[in-house]
């Protein structure tokens, strides 16, 4: 089923077309949710809410960009809305003193393949993780992030700086990144089983 056929079917509320669209995009979107969520259950709840919005608002898609990008934006906003409902989240994005947090090496995932980076991102504190996800992966500006999370732009910048430093530290400890002192070079270590 082509993307156009899926879209046309979803506009008719056709269950088969909705199933096809869900099957095509849900694995990647669950990956997005998983980066924001505390655990898989929460991620699936976010995904569920996001796809309900997608199907309910499908008529608003103008074919002006990629369908996946449109779905992804809805899913990301859904994740943020879910997180904002959680009091812990609003506390965590405001804390500046979180810079003292470090990740112990034994807490870092020991089995690494293509998804190890995501697991390392998820080890970050909630506020750090959210800003890093939005800035480095989803491509939002700090200003946009500030509006989305109801925080100052400067707070977003500082959160990201600390999140990046912490993530680098984790990745270096796991030898996924090598960072010589004289210049920043990112090298992915080939995995032993690849």
């Amino acid at each position, binding site marked *: 089923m082509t993307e156009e056929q899926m879209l046309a079917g979803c506009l008719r509320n056709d*269950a088969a077309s909705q199933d096809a669209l869900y099957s095509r995009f*849900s694995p990647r979107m*669950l990956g997005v949710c998983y980066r924001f969520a505390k655990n898989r259950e929460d991620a699936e709840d976010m995904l*569920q809410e996001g796809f309900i919005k997608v199907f309910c608002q499908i008529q608003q898609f103008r074919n002006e960009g990629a369908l996946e990008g449109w779905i992804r934006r809805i899913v990301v906003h859904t994740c943020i809305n879910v997180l904002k409902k959680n009091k812990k989240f609003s506390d965590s994005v405001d804390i500046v003193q979180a810079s003292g947090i470090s990740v112990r090496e034994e807490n870092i*995932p020991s089995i690494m393949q293509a*998804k190890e980076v*995501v697991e390392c991102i998820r080890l970050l504190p909630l506020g750090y993780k959210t800003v890093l996800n939005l800035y480095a*992966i989803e491509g939002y500006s700090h200003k946009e992030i500030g509006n989305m999370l109801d925080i100052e732009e400067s707070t977003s910048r500082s959160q990201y700086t600390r999140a*990046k430093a912490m993530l680098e530290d984790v990745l270096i400890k796991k030898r996924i990144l090598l960072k010589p002192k004289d210049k920043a070079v990112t090298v992915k270590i080939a995995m032993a089983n690849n």
Partner: protein
Amino acid sequence: MENNPDMVSFEDFIQQQSDDFRMYPSKRVWHSVYNNLHPGRKWPSISMCIVLLTTLFLVGYLNTRDTHGKITQYQLTKNYAASYSKLADNASLILLNESYLSILNLNSTTDNLVSQNKIGTASIYLANLTFTKDKSNIAVWTTNSNNNTNIVNDKNLSAISGKSTLTYSSHSLNSTISSLTAPVSKTALNDETSSSLDKPAKASNQVTFAIINSEKNITEKEGNLHEQDELSPLINKRLSNENNITLFAMPAEAIAKNSISETALTKITISTGATSQVNNTSINQGEKSWIENYALYNKPVAKKWKGRVETQLYITPSVVYRQLLDNAADKNRGLNSISSSASNTDVNNRVKQSPSLGVEMGFNWVYQLPKGVKMKGGFQINYTRFTIHAFDNHHPTATALSMNSSTNNLLYEVFRATPYSNSVGLDAVNLHNQTVQLSIPMGLDVKLAGNDNMEWYVGTTLQPTYVLTGKSYLLSSDGRNYVKENSMLNRFNMNAGFETYLSFKKDGYTLQVGPQLRTQLFSTNSKIFTIEERLQGYGLKIGISKKL
């Protein structure tokens, strides 16, 4: 995105890794989305179960309908000739509806009752009986401990007509209350008024007979009887002009059970004149034919479910075992390394586990079919539990779970962080795979042997099951860790139960006790997880049932 020249490579690297990351959601997510988008199709499975259950009952009902009529007709034909001898032992008469009595007592010391060969007090009990033109009413004749023969005159018969004539008899009721031999009847008649005659009183200590036929003179005079609303000799006169009233009776209990082989079919003649008597005369061919027709076309319909349906409550404590089956063990379908190397041994030998206690409880409707077969269906709550011996490291460790791809025959892995280890760790801990299920057991029981008080049955049930909630710890691909992954639980499953039990009858209740084996036909977890878990429960079923 804002550019930071120093970190472009870092962000690109993170973004690339994250974009490649995919996870496969559980079916629950799609079902929830689907149900939200199409609310009208929300409960197809429950609807199907209800339809299936209803169909089963309907099939049983229709398949047994004709059989009852034939049996009744045959037994009536066969046994009526032997029935007359019992009539002489009956001392009194009660006419009533099916379950309760409204009693009128007429003392032999009054002019209302004339007895022949009277030894003790004779009583006539006339219920709030209405003889209808289609002869479909049920009346009951009862005996008490006296060996009296009752004869009814016209005043007594007037009580049949209804409240107005019952009021007429109230004086004699008050004066003769002590003569009643049935204790229950005495209570009912203490506050004698016209309305009290309609009070129900159980005929628990009396032998009851259902009157299955009456002659035309009662039926056709129904209108005349009801027309009387005052004390008037006219009633007597009218009734006095009628001929004898004849009733045919047989034990009501025997009819209810459809087993009248040991009973007597009795003919009672009540005269409207002073010389009324009870006759032990034989039944002529016309009467016999009418009885047979009545039994064939009326009686089985009225008693169809009576005594055949029972409700059962039960509880089954059980010990739950499990069997693991690694579907990835013999298939190298895309995964290299870890899982295949770890799967060289039987997965059951790679884990430390022990059975745990579970329980099932519920209720059934049981329908008795011919030849000792019982069909049953109902609702049941199951609690299953199984113990895994593991270790808690108190910090998360990344591990992988092997999954079957839904689109091809390959395996893929999903990654999880878990503190639980299978082989070594800081603290020993017991993990419990457990579920709470709602199921609809449907099945058959077959009687192997027994007598009136004790019976031996074997039975089987099929149980469509919905998992309400539960916990699931999954073994990782390398067999080293356990991952808590409740979302992998199969929401719908199917169980089969096999049982044998002894049933004991006591005071109208039946107690059932016996061993039961219950096996789960599909894996506890979704089929995309490569390691299947099948549960078996060995339990002792204890049930109690009562006929409706």
